[in-house]
């Protein structure tokens, strides 16, 4: 019996990787999916935090896609290794703090590594849903060979959706895959993908604007840069990444920033960090939980409390009493008039 060839597919949860897998399955290739978790992935996270997201379906799109395709999915934690990609991107950043080209090279190289580690499962090549011209930084004609070369994948990397615009890869040359049945998609027009999805009977798929990464988001990138600047270091931990996704971030001083919950869901989430951060919440009125990231001297207690009071039910009161809890040091109570909207300066908002 002829050997069934096997590919590992980079699965983001979007339509393109879904189609790439289906195209391979049509040719009798056995596919398993791999999904890399950098910590900046939009999937999941904030759905679990904010109140208004509670009604949204909490599905993880990569898992959902894998289930629709009937393939296994391996999710790989690359949080630590990804730091070097973000901090030292050889090919630079996109419009924000998104190192898209280095990120793609990194992920394909991890897939190469993964194939080697799982050699007993007999993977023959790698596929991605890349389309030439689809993304301004990482998916251009010039970047396709760079990704193949710098990842170490070389001609083991096949992009079924735009393969006809690219040199032949090993699976095509060896006849494992019929090149004539691959595609020549290019550019940002999504119509060919939508038509192919229809042909495959796929009607429900995620089409996230700006991709699936927080680093492509300007507000998120601004907060990350602010964090690095304030700490005078570009080191970060998983908790830092998470907290940048939550609440209003207000920096009234170079020494500290307040993270103020925007709803009950975020308040509850921030409560989980009270052992590590100074936290502030109103006692005399209902209001949000706030964390202090940085150092707070005694003179700044009242300022921080007055800002937090501004975002609670006591915002129009003459005075609000707040609790300031210091990790392992107990707490103190402060009475202060809330700041007015104008007193919370625009430039404080990160």
């Amino acid at each position, binding site marked *: 019996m002829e050997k069934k060839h096997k590919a590992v597919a980079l699965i983001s949860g979007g339509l393109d990787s879904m189609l790439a897998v289906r195209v391979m399955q049509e040719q009798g290739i056995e596919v398993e999916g791999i999904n890399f*978790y950098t910590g900046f*992935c939009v*999937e*999941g*996270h904030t*759905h*679990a*935090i904010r109140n208004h997201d509670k009604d949204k*379906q*909490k*599905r*993880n799109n*990569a*898992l*959902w896609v*894998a*289930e629709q395709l*009937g*393939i*296994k*999915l*391996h*999710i*790989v*934690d690359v949080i630590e290794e990804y730091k070097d990609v973000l901090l030292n991107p050889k090919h630079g950043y996109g419009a924000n703090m998104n190192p898209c080209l280095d990120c793609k090279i990194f992920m394909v190289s991890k897939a190469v590594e993964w194939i080697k580690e799982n050699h007993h499962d007999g993977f023959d090549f790698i596929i991605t849903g890349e389309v030439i011209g689809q993304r301004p930084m990482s998916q251009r004609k010039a970047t396709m060979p760079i990704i193949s070369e710098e990842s170490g994948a070389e001609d083991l990397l096949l992009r079924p959706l735009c393969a006809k615009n690219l040199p032949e890869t090993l699976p095509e040359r060896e006849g494992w895959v019929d090149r004539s049945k691959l595609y020549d998609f290019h550019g940002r027009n999504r119509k060919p993908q939508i038509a192919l999805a229809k042909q495959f009977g796929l009607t429900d798929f995620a089409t996230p604007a700006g991709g699936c990464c927080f680093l492509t988001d300007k507000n998120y990138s601004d907060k990350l840069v602010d964090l690095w600047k304030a700490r005078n270091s570009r080191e970060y931990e998983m908790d830092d990444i*998470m907290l940048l996704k939550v609440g209003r971030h207000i920096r009234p001083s170079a020494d500290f920033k307040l993270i103020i919950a925007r709803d009950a869901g975020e308040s509850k989430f921030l409560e*989980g960090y009270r052992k590590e951060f100074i936290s502030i919440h109103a006692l005399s009125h209902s209001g949000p939980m706030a964390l202090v990231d940085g150092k707070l001297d005694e003179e700044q207690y009242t300022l921080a409390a007055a800002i937090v009071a501004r975002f609670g039910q006591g915002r129009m009161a003459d005075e609000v009493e707040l609790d300031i809890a210091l990790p392992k040091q107990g707490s103190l109570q402060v009475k202060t008039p809330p700041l007015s909207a104008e007193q919370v300066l625009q430039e404080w908002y990160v």
Partner: protein
Amino acid sequence: MSKQILDARKMLCPLPVIKAQNQIKLMSQGEELDVICTDPGALHDIPAWARINGHEVIATQQNDDELVITVRVGA
């Protein structure tokens, strides 16, 4: 049959799934893993992961803010 416990409290998805996946890799068919977590997203993601990878969620308990999802390791 031996049972293992994974503490994935405070972690947000997909981390509880990743931790469960990595632990299950080291377990044998038929063994059970209790995943304790606080992210309600895990209620959807762990069963989805189990289904596509040939494992089975055999029980789900919810106590206050904590969830315990029991996965039986498949072949």
